[in-house]
């Protein structure tokens, strides 16, 4: 290693270490709000927490294209379901909006200084506070509660009518 390389390496190492030395002890770790309920018994969330921390953005990116372009509306990795479960009301019953440290997404994103633009279009709080989802099937349409408004036969009835003898 030449002298020049040595100097470059030293400066780089110093630059990389700088934020840690400056911030160490100053910024407390984020307080991440607890989810409303356990989606699975095995690991709580729809995937193990370590996996979600590392890969939630990829899963959301994949899901958004499936949903919008192909109409695949499953619960798992649906942004609406993340919000329903993870954005919890504060003591006064109000929800923190994205940008406030109390919001589930902001708690980490503000700490890590990573911007998100999901919420310039998507709603950042649950729409219906009484809304609790069942995670049993994993394939429920995630807006199922409004699926059959109006004068339509229920899906079950239609299945009986049309597929009764398929078993």
């Amino acid at each position, binding site marked *: 290693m030449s002298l020049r390389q040595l100097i470059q390496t030293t400066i780089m190492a110093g630059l990389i270490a700088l934020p840690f030395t400056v911030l160490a002890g100053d910024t407390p770790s984020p307080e991440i709000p607890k989810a409303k309920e356990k989606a699975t018994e095995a690991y709580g969330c729809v995937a193990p927490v370590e996996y979600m921390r590392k890969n939630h953005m990829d899963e959301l990116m994949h899901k*958004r*294209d*499936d949903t*919008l*372009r*192909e*109409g*695949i*509306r*499953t619960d798992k990795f649906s942004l*609406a379901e993340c919000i329903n479960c993870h954005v919890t009301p504060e003591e006064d019953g109000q929800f923190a*909006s994205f940008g406030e440290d109390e919001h589930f997404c902001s708690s980490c994103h503000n700490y890590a200084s990573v911007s998100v633009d999901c919420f*310039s*279009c*998507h*709603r*950042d*709080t649950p*729409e219906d506070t009484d809304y609790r989802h069942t995670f049993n099937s994993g*394939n*429920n*349409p*995630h*807006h*199922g509660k*409004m*699926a*059959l*408004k*109006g*004068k*339509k*036969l229920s*899906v079950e009835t*239609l*299945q009986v*009518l*049309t*597929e009764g*003898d*398929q078993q």
Partner: protein
Amino acid sequence: MTDKTYNADLSRRHFFGKAAAAAGMAVAPGVFLRQVHARPADQAATSEQRWGILIDTDKCAKGCDSCVTACMDENGWGRADASEDKSGPHQKAQWIRKVTIKDKQTGHVQSLPLMCQHCENPPCVDVCPTGASMKRADGIVLVDKHICIGCRYCMMACPYKARSFVHEDLEDQKVVAPRGKGTVESCTMCVHRVDENGTPACVEACNADNHNAMYFGDLKDPNSEISRQLKQYGGKELRADLGLNTGVRYRGL
């Protein structure tokens, strides 16, 4: 898995196999209850359907705007969106609007709702530089706001003036209809409802008010209500000369 696979041959065979049994459920001579498959949530929309809306302008009441207000409430634009308050009337979103037309010669006045016509060959999709303006396999034309850059070429290309641009930061959007500043938007045929075997909010509101001027259904299914109506009484495209083969048709014009 096989019985859940959405397969053309399977369902067709299934249908013919059922024809005899279905005769018992005939609503009227020659008219059968439609073979409805609620598409499982984990399966993609296919080109086996093409969703369409038929509007009977003779039944569409003048001065009635239930379809418009239903759309606002469902998708959170217009009066249902308090945050878009700095935009002028010409800037605000209009997913669906009521149009009144008058024949100058006879004085005959007609009223009709106008929205995205969900073309088979949509000009908005042709001109989009990013691929954000898109048509789903089942014929519903949408904007993928994830990749929309807000250039508004599609708004210029659309002969029906069906698209709007959001000029302001929004908040408290509906979960089913994400919308935000800097992107173009239009009628989605309530795709979130359609994906769950539902009916668009405008059609539902029209029926709820007993006007029954709108029919929603699968244009590719000869037994659907909309197809039978179209076969029996016909339905026109707006600007048929453009050859866009619209999914929204009008009768009585």
